[in-house]
């Protein structure tokens, strides 16, 4: 009996594919903006939406979407109003969201399936065909928005003041980003649950950051990693009988630890090997260039600088520039230096 023989598993894998793709695409901007926990907070707010849906017998996905987007817009407006305890306002909203959800759910008439756990930690096998359709709609909207506005969202997340100075609609873009996060929260609700959503937004980005050189690369790599851990986590949970959300997040954390140690190991061995082959001039006091006063000397495919008789070859690495000693200059240094 294979994974794909069950309808519910097909839907589950489809949902996890969409979540894995969308959550990191939005999460990268949150990491850049240092607002990693916004998704967490909006997950709390969405719980009140879920409870309202259960109580009024409407689809919890829709009411959660409305509540999360409303919460997101409110948060951005509070942030934009500035100085007066935005922090406290956020806390009130977040905890109000989860408390409201718990209390409202407890009021639901008996006989209705109100399993709090399934919302908090995900219940991917309960994904209905209607849910899949809604999720697909949300995914398309979020991915299109990121594709269309990505560069502006990057500008605002990177340097809000500069974005304002050059006339970008900062508040509008912040509200759009928050609304995208809210939509992603709802999308992820069934797969990882409201309490673990942030993990799937943040962790793939944190892994991609270690490997990528540009923002674009980071986004693409994060989406790839997101799909990988989400789908494989869902498949694993089928065989081990563990909850999908927790399995996915543990997989992501394992990957994060693995990549972190591999990158650290690779860097240190590369540095050691480099040091064995050439003399490295660490902590060079200035950067050689046209204006530094040390004459440039062509050397094969690069330019060395004649630093008091030593040939310094710039070596650029991800951590900056250091200088390799490329031997003595054939013309000796002035005698009295």
């Amino acid at each position, binding site marked *: 009996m294979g994974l794909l023989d069950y309808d519910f598993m097909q839907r589950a894998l489809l949902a996890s594919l969409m979540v894995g793709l969308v959550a990191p695409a939005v999460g*990268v901007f949150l*990491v*850049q903006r*240092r607002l990693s926990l916004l998704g967490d907070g909006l997950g709390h707010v969405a719980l009140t939406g879920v409870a309202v849906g259960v109580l009024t017998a409407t689809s919890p996905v829709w009411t959660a979407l409305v509540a999360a987007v409303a919460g997101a817009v409110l948060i951005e407006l509070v942030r934009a109003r500035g100085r007066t305890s935005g922090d406290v306002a956020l806390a009130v909203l977040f905890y109000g969201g989860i408390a409201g959800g718990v209390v409202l759910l407890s009021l639901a008439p008996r006989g209705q399936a109100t399993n709090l756990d399934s919302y908090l930690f995900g219940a991917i096998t309960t994904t209905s065909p209607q849910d899949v359709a809604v999720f697909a709609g949300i995914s398309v909207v979020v991915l299109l928005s990121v594709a*269309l*506005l990505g*560069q*502006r969202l*990057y*500008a605002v*997340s*990177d*340097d809000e*003041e*500069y*974005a*304002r*100075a*050059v*006339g*970008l*609609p900062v508040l509008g873009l912040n509200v759009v980003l928050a609304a995208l996060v809210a939509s992603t929260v709802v999308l992820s609700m069934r797969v990882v649950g409201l309490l673990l959503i942030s993990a799937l937004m943040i962790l793939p*980005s944190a892994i991609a*950051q270690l490997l*990528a*050189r*540009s*923002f*674009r*690369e*980071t986004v693409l790599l994060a989406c790839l990693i997101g799909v990988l851990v989400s789908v494989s986590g869902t498949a694993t949970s089928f065989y081990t009988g563990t909850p999908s959300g927790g399995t996915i997040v543990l997989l992501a954390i394992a990957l994060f630890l693995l990549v972190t140690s591999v990158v650290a190991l690779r860097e240190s061995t590369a540095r050691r090997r480099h040091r064995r082959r050439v003399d490295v001039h660490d902590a060079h006091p*200035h*950067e050689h*260039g*046209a*204006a*530094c006063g040390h004459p440039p000397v062509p050397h094969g495919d690069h330019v060395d600088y004649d630093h008091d008789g030593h040939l310094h070859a710039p070596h*650029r*690495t*991800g*951590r*900056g*520039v250091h200088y390799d000693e490329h031997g003595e200059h054939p013309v000796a240094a002035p005698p009295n230096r």
Partner: protein
Amino acid sequence: MSTQIPAIRLRGATIGYGDVPIVRDVDLTIAAGEAVAVLGSNGSGKTTLSRGLLGLATVLDGEVQVLGAPVGRLRERGRVGYVPQRHSISGAVPATVREVAGVGRLARLGLFRPLGAADRRAVVDAVAAVGLADRLDDPVAALSGGQQRRVLVARALAAEPELLIMDEPTAGVDAASQEALAGTLAAISARGTTLVVVTHESAPLAGVLTRAVVVDHGRVAYDGPLSGAGHHDEHLHHHPPEREPAGYRLDQPTVTPGPRAAADRER
């Protein structure tokens, strides 16, 4: 750049934050193509003045016009370039020099238009203008502090602005980067771009800037040739006036560790 409209025109302008005025009742006109240093000590209001021109501080009273339009009403925001005072530009997520400079070009593109071929060329040209053409696709985190500052200048230049407002572009920058910056600014000034440089040390850019506006306690204390700003500037640096007998030493960088260290702590 043949317009009669001044690049900047302030009439009785009071600028501040919230409802707290910092700069009061300033009259100032800067013609298109001028290269002006806005000097002043720490807390004098010079940064607030420049932020008022950019719509980052509030105009509380009077009139502030930039390129002929009241602040914030200018349609083509790309015509005004801005280099903020920042010591590092590497954010949480890696980004290349090309990506950071590309943000500046967005000012010309409105809300949805992506960078076209001409825009990409402008970005490459801007990075080349600050002497970092060979670092285009390097992560900004791999650059030195001075080079990162030059990337911020490239970001502003990418929009091909008519007016360039810079906040302390030389503070804490190594000598080689300062020289590169002076060369870049001389070139764009020669093309007719108006320069407004907020700084506490005009010496590194003395060859480029010709006029000085000295701000003291929120008011303009001096407005004239840079060479004549010496007395006021020296006064602001709390030197006894007799130490510097004849004006401002353009050929010598002023070594004033006190105010400079203080300025580094600013903001």
